[in-house]
């Protein structure tokens, strides 16, 4: 099963190495990892998507990550209400014949054309991973020349419908 873990870490040389090292050392499978600055100076946010067999593994992963001295906080947000986004750039073959047809696909996905070449288009699409997967499938028949994906970055929504709150309401 897929799980999304977010970490805040000290922005210090070697931190990313320590974290990716941990994944390979403990034989965990990373599907994607994104890193960037957070709202706090010298603190970076990392989002990992991992594929695990069971809950015990995800517990071990979070504990091992938490043990790292530069890791400030680890949260497994898979079960919570989150905003998760990924960006993909797709260079796809396009002839004058297919262009308008492709446009009809791009529009409902709210993707955009960011570069037009003689016989290719570069399409940018953002959204949840499933949406991107679906769009890539649609583009495949036209001939994908190159594909670059950022991997998901995510955090919690402002309002959580946590099980705690639900319980409280029902008691009241």
């Amino acid at each position, binding site marked *: 099963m897929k799980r999304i873990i977010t970490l805040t870490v000290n922005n210090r*040389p070697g931190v990313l190495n320590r974290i990716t090292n941990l994944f390979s050392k403990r034989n965990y499978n990373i599907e994607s990892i994104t890193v960037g600055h957070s709202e706090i100076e010298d603190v970076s946010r990392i989002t990992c998507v991992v594929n695990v067999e069971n809950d015990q593994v995800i517990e071990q992963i979070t504990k091992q990550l938490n043990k790292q001295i530069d890791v400030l906080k680890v949260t497994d947000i898979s079960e919570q209400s989150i905003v998760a986004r990924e960006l993909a750039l797709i260079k796809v073959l396009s002839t004058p014949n297919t262009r308008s047809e492709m446009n009809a696909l791009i529009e409902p996905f709210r993707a955009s054309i960011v570069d037009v070449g003689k016989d290719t288009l570069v399409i940018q699409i953002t959204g949840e991973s499933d949406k991107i997967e679906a769009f890539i499938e649609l583009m495949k028949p036209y001939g994908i020349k190159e594909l670059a994906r950022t991997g998901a970055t995510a955090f919690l929504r402002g309002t959580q419908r946590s099980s705690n709150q639900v319980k409280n309401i029902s008691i009241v």
Partner: protein
Amino acid sequence: MLQETALTNTKAENKSLNGSELLLQALEKEKVEVIFGYPGGAVLPIYDKIYDSKILHVLPRHEQGGIHAAEGYARITGKPGVVIVTSGPGATNIVTGLTDAMIDSLPLVVFTGQVATGVIGTDAFQEADILGITTPITKYNYQVRNIEDIPHIIKEAFYIATSGRPGPVLIDIPRDIATAVTEVPEEREIYLPGYQPTLKPNYLQIRKLTEAVSRAKKPVILAGAGVLHSKASCQLKEYAEQQNIPVVHTLLGLGGFPAEHELSLGMAGMHGCYTANMALYESDLLINIGARFDDRLTGNLKHFAPNATVAHIDIDPAEIGKNVPTEIPVVADAKEALIELIAQEGKPPSHHEWLKTLAGWKIEYPYVYENNANTLKPQKVLEMLYQKTNGEAIVVTDVGQHQMWAAQYYRFGKANRWVTSGGLGTMGFGLPASIGAALADKDATVLAVLGDGGFQMCTQELAVIRELNLPIKIVILNNVALGMVRQWQELFYEERYSHSKNPVQPSFVKLAEAYNIKGYVIESEAKAEEVLAEVLQNREPVLLDFRIDANENVYPMIAPGKGINEMVGVKQK
């Protein structure tokens, strides 16, 4: 006017120092007694300052020996072993020792030289990416980028190495940083928001454990090295006696509970005793204190303590539930948790039947071997050593059959008398580690119990033993074989002894003599009596080449993949 003078004074005190001076000043501040170090190009500036330092510097004859010695020192004192090596090959030579310290949770602070910052990444002479290499095998590592950071990094490194679950910390120092000059920077407080080890146990879990104990019919405590790291052996004894709970040891935990105590069941695991293994197997409440349920202890997890409620006290939350599902997790320092547990004064379990069964097993199934007048049995040698040192020596071992025999037959009465490479199983560890142990406790007699294989992996350290005149009695249980490998080949590879038997050997006695250390070949019990009586009287180093029965195996044994209840070689007395 007065004020002005005061101001100028502080300024004068705030004189400029170079990176190497800052380093040694920081080590003095941490009250470092001994540095195990080997000089080389990148650390020449540091060595120039060591020349004037009051701290004892020990020169191993190989960096690997240096770091193992530091581990021996750390194991006995609980203080970090300090190592300084040069860049490149100096640094890569300590990789095994770092891994060993990491897996056995030994505090080390290791300094590696590095090429100058300007040439890092250019494959300069003796450059190695030691941060990259050591990331998975250190608790933390640093590369100093600004000279002003040296005092703070060292302070932090000592704190990280010794607090929480101890471990090795590495500091990489580029050559130009060691020579750069700065005013002594102001001291900063340690601030590590991502590192806050939990020391105090959760009260609810302590209650839960206390209640589980009062209900238990077959409780057992598994005491690991965590008891030793947190210096909790007194509390362990008090708690075990208060609740009348028997205690089983892991290999690394030996000494945490007195072996001769009525409640002591001995060591469990692959070569543990019948009573200890069966106690774990039969128990209905297993209280793990500071052990990590290593596979050499548990055997096949399917058969491990199948009927037990598992409670696990550990300072490292990641160890809890890692291998064995745990009902009562207690994240805490072992000592703090035991103090809380004792304070509960819970109702002791009613488990007379259980204690009676265990006492019966202890008598019926002790470690046994067949003594034979024609050969010298290794077990006999260890029994003699135990008796003749009154069980008070520090015993340091290498890895293999001799290690298991030492663990079985030397009955430790107190903590911090036992130094062995457990998790990593590092051959070559024993001889250099005994140097660190001897420096850590200057009054003790140190027995370095080694096999003929492991002894030859770090023989060069004999020079250090002679140089420092350390009271190390080198006991080689010589079967002219890599005994444990031979044993496995006998049992699991149809006696196809691939590269494990009868290697060409030098005369160990002559080798010792070359280092001006006295040596004896001992082929019989009578000779052993005579020589031991003599050499244990004095404080001189000595090498004893015991020619033991080459076909002796370590039993009992749990074959790989088998359960803890499936021991072979158990004999009734």
